[in-house]
């Protein structure tokens, strides 16, 4: 199921969590739980917007629209290697 999540993301380049839920015949809530699990295991990286040094100094930070938007996750090298069935231990070198 996890591999299917990552495979679908790679296939479509960009996919919404709602589309993932539909494709996996499950609920968006469960997809979000799986995404959190994949983040914990470093297969996905949660994108923190508004976290850069420039954003922290920005006078518009309090009202920045981008900081308050929905969550985004990005595939990591480890995630891509797992889907491609490459040995994860090779990533450490």
């Amino acid at each position, binding site marked *: 199921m996890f591999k299917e999540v990552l495979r679908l993301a790679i296939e479509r380049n960009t996919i919404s969590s709602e589309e993932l839920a539909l494709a996996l015949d499950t609920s968006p809530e469960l997809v979000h*739980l799986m995404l959190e699990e994949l983040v914990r295991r470093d297969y996905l990286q949660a994108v923190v917007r508004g976290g850069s040094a420039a954003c922290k100094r920005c006078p518009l930070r309090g009202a920045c629209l981008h900081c308050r938007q*929905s969550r985004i996750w990005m595939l990591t*090298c480890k995630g891509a290697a797992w889907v491609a069935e490459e040995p994860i231990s090779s990533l450490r070198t």
Partner: protein
Amino acid sequence: MNRTPEHTSQERTLLVGLAGQPNVGKSTLFNLLTGLTQHVGNWPGKTVERKEGTLAHNKTRMRLVDLPGTYSLTAHSLEEQVARDFIIQEQPDVIVMVADASSLERNLYLLAELLILCTPVVLALNMLDVAEAQGIQIELHVLEAALGLPVVPMVATRNQGPDELIAAIEHLAYNPATFHPTLPQIAAPHRRVLDQLKEMVAGQVPAPFDPDWVALKLLEGDTEITRKAKGWAGKLLWPRIEALLAAHEDAVLDIASGRYEWIGRMVRAAVTRPRLGQVSLTDKLDRVAVHPLWGLVLLFCVFAAVFWLTFTLAVPLQEWLDVTVVGQAHVAARHLLAGAPGWLAALVADGVLGGAGLVLTFLPILAVFFGALALLEDTGYLARSAYVMDRFMHALGLHGKSFLPLFLGFDCNVPAVMGARVIESRSGRLLTILLAPLVPCSARLVVLAFLAPAFFGAAALPVALALVALNLLVLVLVGITLSHTLFRGQHVAFIMELPLYHMPNARTIGTAVWNNTWAFVRKAGSFILLASVVVWALSYFPTGALEQSYLARLGRSLSPMGELIGMDWRMLVALISSFVAKENAIVTLGVLYGQSGGGLASTLAAQVPPASALAFLTVTMLFIPCLATVAVMRQETGSWRWTLFDVALLLAIALGAGILVYHGAGALGMEG
């Protein structure tokens, strides 16, 4: 397992653990069941609070232990470790797993972990009222059959369900043989590995640990169990176990995957979520909003609507402020300073009021523009626009990871350049940094929103949209060219959350408008005011006559280029001044053209031919980034060579486009 298998008429004390995630009503239920009998202490050797209480029912006495709220039993935290140790070491007769019925998926993961500990579990399905209010329907008998364990519906806050729960605890404690839960299965690829591990640890694991559970936890990479197992297995066996685990590091996801499949099956069987109202509305709207083609068309229409709204609502107000407020202030300043030295009167009237005063007339434009963006964000549309644009960029062969920083560029190019740090590869990062200044930042959009109506009146909307489209087209063309030549890179996949559409909140939008506008006022009050005074000084000295000023000399030295793009020296100087900050283009035009008398809009309309105006706006949109962006580009690339390459590239593109637009517009009869 040390449990009493048969019913007994003797009074006995049952040990019952209350497990659950935080905020599921566990403490409420504990208080309800134990009343005044509870006492609080600490778990042995731990700083975690231990709450115990007793309950007498018929001939049964129950000792209830409120376990710390945890999301799982992986022993990552002290709370998780305490809860797990209690179940393993103290072997309770029954564990009551308290779950939030409105968020069943999240709660079932903990249940999946409890069940593999082989302890009898009763599921107390609390907060059913909340679930019902959200339209979630749970078929309790179906859930009970699917899970293979007792499920008790509860609303602990209303004292609903404790009697049924006590009865279920009693029944399960006295009849443990009836407990046949459906357990999550490890996904197929690693089942054989788990069997191998079970064989290896069998006979090595001391009581009260269950060898099968230990094998599973080893495969999961549980640090505490791994440490213990190393001691249990000894020097001969452990290297074999370790080698097997090292070869199957990814098994952890197959184990978790099995649990999520199990959760999915349970929820599909017993839970019905509403497909009415907000959800179905979101589905319907998203058929268009995230469609690969219609989504882009809608995005363009939304951009058009934002500009239309800005021009329709804000520009008349801005013109009124320009003529009435700033114009009157200008006259009043001249009158009040009639006896003062000429340079002082000119400084106040033309330098301060002609520049920063003019910028303050932007406020209606800013308020409407930021209000429209905040409205789109608050309704949930802005997330869709990001989604559609990301797919579009992938389709064009650009780096997927470039999208986020570039999207930030719509606000300001500085965070866009700095945001490129999320890209690991140097080539991808460089490409993003080089492209970032081509994203029309809010300052450039404000200049466009101000000058387009001034130059083109009723035709401002199509002109502004065409210029934004041109900007994005150039970005895409440059991106494709660079990504297929200098910067070949790999695609990166994204997963995005698309929130439900909802009614916007007036307070949220108001706050966004206020904060953005106030930040701009502060900028206008310091940085832009200073730039305005400098521009005025250069346009006044040494003789006091504009035509003989330093600025005029600088502008005239560039006149060969100006002739090619149809701009007089004042427009060239305005363009150069925008290098400091984009808004300075308007300030400079205000200082240089405003001296002709009347509002800036009418002066510009009268003095600048449409072809020149179009060329000016085109060059402004594609021009080199502001000073702050260039400085950050140097910092982030660590190279003056790349920074200057990009500045030169953008300058060439802007001037080339300006020449084409000017002569093209001239050929179409827009010269005068």
